[in-house]
């Protein structure tokens, strides 16, 4: 364990669709399958796969029922899911602050080597470059 925030990320949660599912379920308390599918622009099959991963990890509970004659599937966060989401957000924030510190110190080093820096954003990753391979 190096202590780097990237090492603290949970692979189950640190995935764009699954983080989106957990975020929506957290805010909504309970969310219907079709809302998730439409919001995240997924196919039903793709969403089912992600829900299966999260349910197997014990992060969500899936409840099937009926609203009138319509079959509905509701998704809710478990306590473990709440904790995992909070941890992921914390680690993402830590990672961002670490990247920004690194970018700032790298900028200072470049300034020392090359003289005054050209005008531009102080933070190296503001353009959206990925910090993961």
């Amino acid at each position: 364990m190096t202590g780097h925030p990237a090492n603290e990320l949970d692979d189950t949660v640190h995935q764009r669709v699954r983080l989106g599912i957990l975020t929506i379920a957290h805010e909504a308390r309970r969310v219907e399958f079709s809302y998730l599918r439409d919001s995240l622009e997924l196919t039903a099959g793709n969403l089912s796969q992600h829900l299966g991963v999260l349910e197997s990890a014990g992060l969500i509970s899936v409840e099937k029922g009926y609203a009138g004659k319509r079959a509905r599937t509701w998704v809710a966060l478990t306590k473990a899911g709440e904790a995992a989401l909070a941890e992921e957000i914390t680690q993402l924030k830590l990672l961002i602050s670490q990247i920004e510190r690194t970018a700032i110190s790298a900028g200072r080093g470049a300034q020392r080597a090359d003289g005054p820096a050209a005008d531009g954003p102080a933070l190296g990753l503001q353009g959206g470059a990925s910090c993961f391979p």
Partner: protein
Amino acid sequence: METMTSWPAGDPYLLLSNARELAHRVRREQRATWFPLLLLAALTLASVPVVRYGGHHLDCRAVAGAMSCRVYSDAEFVYWPVALVLAYVAIAAFYLRRSRARGLGTRVRPYAIAGIVIAVALTGAALLELSDPAAGQNLLGLHAAGLPGRLATPEAAIGLALLVLARAERNRPLLLLTIGYLAAILVPVTFAGIPDGIRSAAWYALPAVVPGTMLLLGGVGFALAQRPLRPVAS
């Protein structure tokens, strides 16, 4: 319903900003702030004729060598507890139905519970106060003096419960509106300078018309702000 336009791969900036965007979107779709505001505005404004024509008691007693009088309305004792409890039940039902139709849960339960508890507590406090000869102020009606008296009015009870809704919905505009509303409620109402001919009407109407109008304007504002966006015809 809005949909995501793009998804990042693993960039923490984009993951975090998209999570925030999703959270804000869900909150926006859960909110129906206009409904409780308009309903409570209607109740507040409807209380004016209830107070005016509901019959009053003037109860004067000698307390510690001085005369202490209170004015209270029988109709108000019935109107406000019943109206507030029914209103919170209606608000909870509206939120549940609306959010279910959208495929979401709701955050209205703490608000409805807090509203009912405050309404019941207010009525209990008023009844207790009326049964206590040493008390000199009417807790339920519009005529109590001092900050505690003004806090123990139905209008203030509505405002206190709205603070819970603002917290539950994480709704900053509602929080600001509620703070302004409570500030207006807690300002002492005086009738000095009002001509005798209209003083009686002002005494009945003013304490309800000001908060009622604030709730009404707030409700209209939120209804406009939260109306669903219609697709532009091409």
